């Protein structure tokens, strides 16, 4: 009798254990998000959040997508195995071998994709070897993984372990792993085999054909209206209370293209999160009495707002002038950065004199960093030193008598760029240089910068996207052979390369091969100082990162990037 009862108990216990596991649909070994990362504490499961997207997503493919409106959606559905600091999150552990070239990743037991299928080492190997490293598939991720002209060797050691071996020590390896979302082999193998991956997971795909390991999964997409995402029941993260993440049941991203309308909708209570423009801030501050929090965050040091001169100009006068570092320094002194910040950014910004780079390496605030405070007198004397005489009409002339005059391109339709250019032209006019501002269609501007060799422009006011600030991504801009080294492509052909440019090339090469953070920081400090001293382009300013959200409605808001891409959406909760 007792024996039977015991057996019954045992069987039911086992049975309940199995059933219970399915009911909870929780992976056996989730990542516990440290409580310190939740500034508003623990949340409850439930509720939804709405944030406006600037356009329809063009694809749900996280590898081939290259637009803010698409990444806003894919970043919620897909995730990498480690976070930005190199900490293993969805992976169980990350080990770096002593030789600094090999990294071993161990996955969590019981991890699955959002459709319930298990995630194994094969999926990771598939994602890297068959997709990211695939020569027929184009993606910005490739640049992050390329080391010494090739890709690391990726192998699965067993069902849960992956080994990634780079040929040489590669400082960008961790950040590459942190940027790569893991794809389900069972859903995409066929597309890769048939060469159709670039078109896979387009916007016409049904939600049950898409799966990822991110906090949310696609619920519905109505073109021109909205994207609706629902919680991923198989997400492998919990909070310290054991509550499975994400907290939110649903995230909705309506498509709203007009800037004014997005602000109106937020003011009207239709959205909970809104990345404001500088001019919106006074209004939002006024609304703060209603519980709207406007947090003006620390200035990001990533995107670079610059004015560049074509140092390969076909006009010999201009070419000589633009290549003269004293001219560029003079122009930098003649640039009223505070005026631009005041006029365009509602004073929410900071002047910049050097390149943008990740906060880990940024030294722009150092006391000894080169600066070019607005000083027309100093600018004028530098121009005198170069030998640009002032004519009777107050305008400067070259030695041959021709006026010092050039065209400054900006992007038509972008008032910020055009306004900066107008202000800049006005100030240069006061020291005798005639600048003709010409707004052009974006495509036309790109054509002039990158369409021909040598480029045809004189000068341009443009913003260089700094990505996430990892220095390795800036190499294409500052190295002689970089594909975006547009102000002096001739550097890549070795002709008349300045000494400091050669030094910059060396510094960038060295820091790429070093995994020692301190060593890298020193190298990059030298890099920044060199670039700031020589002003290859005139650095202007940085806009402060601005975030706004309904404090009375959401908690644990970590910010957005590129307009609608939510950071740490899994710990966001609805109050």
């Amino acid at each position, binding site marked *: 009798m007792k024996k039977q009862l015991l057996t019954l108990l045992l069987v039911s216990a086992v049975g309940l254990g199995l059933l219970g596991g399915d009911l909870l649909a929780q992976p056996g070994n989730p990542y516990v998000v440290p409580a310190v990362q939740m500034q508003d504490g623990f949340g409850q499961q439930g509720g939804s959040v709405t944030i406006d997207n600037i*356009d*329809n997503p*063009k*694809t749900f493919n996280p590898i081939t997508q*290259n637009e803010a409106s698409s990444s806003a959606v894919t970043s919620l559905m897909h995730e990498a195995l480690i976070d930005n600091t190199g900490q293993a999150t969805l992976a169980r552990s990350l080990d770096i071998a002593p030789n600094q070239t090999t990294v071993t990743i161990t996955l969590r037991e019981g991890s699955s994709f959002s459709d319930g299928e298990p995630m194994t080492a094969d999926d990771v190997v598939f994602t890297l070897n068959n997709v990211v490293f695939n020569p027929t598939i*184009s*993606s*910005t991720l*490739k*640049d992050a993984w390329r080391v010494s002209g090739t890709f690391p060797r990726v192998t699965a050691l067993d069902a849960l372990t992956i080994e990634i071996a780079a040929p040489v020590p590669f400082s960008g390896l961790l950040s590459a792993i942190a940027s790569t979302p893991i794809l389900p082999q069972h859903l995409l193998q066929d597309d890769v085999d048939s060469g159709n991956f*670039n*078109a896979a997971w*387009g*916007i*016409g795909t049904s939600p049950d054909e898409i799966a990822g390991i991110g906090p949310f999964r696609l619920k*519905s997409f*109505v*073109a*021109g*209206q*909205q994207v*609706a995402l629902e919680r991923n029941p198989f997400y492998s993260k919990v909070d310290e209370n054991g509550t499975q993440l994400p907290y939110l049941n649903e995230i909705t991203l*309506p*498509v*709203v*293209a*007009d800037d*004014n*309308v997005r602000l*109106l*909708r937020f*003011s*009207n*209570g*239709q959205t909970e999160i809104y990345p404001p423009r500088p001019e919106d801030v006074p209004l939002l501050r006024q609304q703060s009495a209603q519980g709207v929090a406007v947090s003006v965050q620390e200035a990001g040091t990533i995107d670079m707002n610059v004015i560049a001169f074509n140092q390969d100009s076909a006009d010999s006068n201009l070419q000589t002038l633009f290549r003269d570092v004293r001219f560029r320094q003079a122009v930098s002194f003649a640039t009223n950065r505070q005026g631009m910040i005041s006029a365009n950014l509602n004073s929410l910004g900071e002047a910049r004199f050097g390149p943008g780079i990740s906060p880990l390496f940024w030294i722009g605030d150092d006391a000894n960093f080169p600066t070019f405070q607005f000083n027309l007198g100093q600018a004028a004397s530098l121009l005198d030193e170069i030998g640009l005489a002032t004519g009777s009409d107050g305008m400067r002339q070259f030695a041959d008598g021709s006026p010092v005059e050039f065209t400054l391109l900006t992007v038509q339709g972008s008032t910020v760029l055009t306004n900066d250019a107008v202000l800049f032209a006005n100030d240069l006019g006061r020291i005798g240089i005639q600048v003709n501002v010409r707004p*052009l*269609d*974006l*495509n*036309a501007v*790109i*054509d002039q910068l*990158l*369409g021909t060799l040598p480029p045809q422009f004189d000068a341009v006011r443009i913003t260089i*996207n700094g990505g996430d600030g990892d220095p390795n991504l800036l190499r*294409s801009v500052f190295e002689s052979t970089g*594909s*975006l080294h547009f102000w002096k492509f001739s550097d890549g052909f070795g002709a008349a390369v300045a000494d400091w440019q050669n030094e910059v090339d060396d510094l960038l090469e060295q820091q790429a091969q070093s995994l020692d953070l301190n060593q890298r920081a020193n190298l990059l400090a030298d890099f920044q100082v060199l670039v700031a001293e020589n002003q290859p382009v005139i650095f202007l300013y940085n806009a402060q990162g601005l975030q706004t959200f309904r404090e009375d409605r959401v908690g644990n808001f970590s910010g957005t990037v590129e307009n609608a891409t939510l950071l740490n959406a899994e710990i966001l909760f609805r109050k």
Partner: protein
Amino acid sequence: MLTYLLRRLLYTIPLLLIISMVVFLVMQMSPGNFCTTLKLQSEQIYNECVERTGIDQAIWVQYGKWIWGIVSSFDFGFSFQNGQPVLNQLFTSGTFESGNPLFWTLVLSFGAMIMSWLLALPLGIYAATHQGNWRDWLVNVFGFIGLSIPNFFLAIGILWALVVVFQVGTNCWQSEQLGQTVCLGVSGLFDGGYVTAAWSGEKVLNLFWHLWPAFLVIAAANLAAIVRYVRSEMLNVLSEPYVQTARSKGLKERVVTVKHALKNALNPLISMLGYWLPSMFEGTLVAAMVLQLPTVEGAYWTALRQGDQYVVMAGLLFFSMILIVGNLLSDILLAWVNPKIRYQ
């Protein structure tokens, strides 16, 4: 009459062909192409885009392939933005619950037209019956104001008034259908979860709340014209002998005006229908853009800005066809109504 009709219809085909060629040429002459902005990301991505879209082929090759696709399998090409078939992108994307662009364009156009007439008829009649005094003048001014305000400004102004002045977002209620609280919002077609919900009375009401600013913006530009038209028609008819007769028979003033004059005023309305849809293109486009309405004009405009050429060409063919058919219809109706006007 029939031969005339056939001849005009036959003319449409070469007409559309020429239009598509002109448009294609214009697009090719614009600086850069759909993929140009990708150059800022990487050379390889740019090249992949060019290969995918086929824009590096000779102009006549691209055009020829496109025409061949239409003729052989009614395939209008694909959108560069997302790979969707053009017809889908422009007209049919969406579900039954959410509607599709073609549907919304029709709703918007006819809705605006109906609103214009609903507003203009009483105004025109009022002006005609008070001809000469200040009321008449006021109606005139009112109409002119409508067409003197730039439509994009009117659109944003209405939204601003609704949100900032009237604070419509504070009007909330519990929706039985959705099981959640819904508040009045602006822009788009629906609030909250109505986008994917089944059609119901609630949903239609919510839709109308979102559409009326659009109707107003589109109607405003043409209101003055219709009001004066109705007014002049009414004046015409009111001075006709049979109206005098009706009056002398002792029928009440209102019956006289409404019954007799209205019938005549409505007659040429039908002939104006032909001009209506295409003339509203600009208004519907601006309304779609500012108010975020998923219409054919909206999809067309997004494609135009990015250089998504097949979508643009198909869209233009669509609008041109509407205009041509509209012209044809109105010419026919005109001739049918007034036998004195005959075209060769």
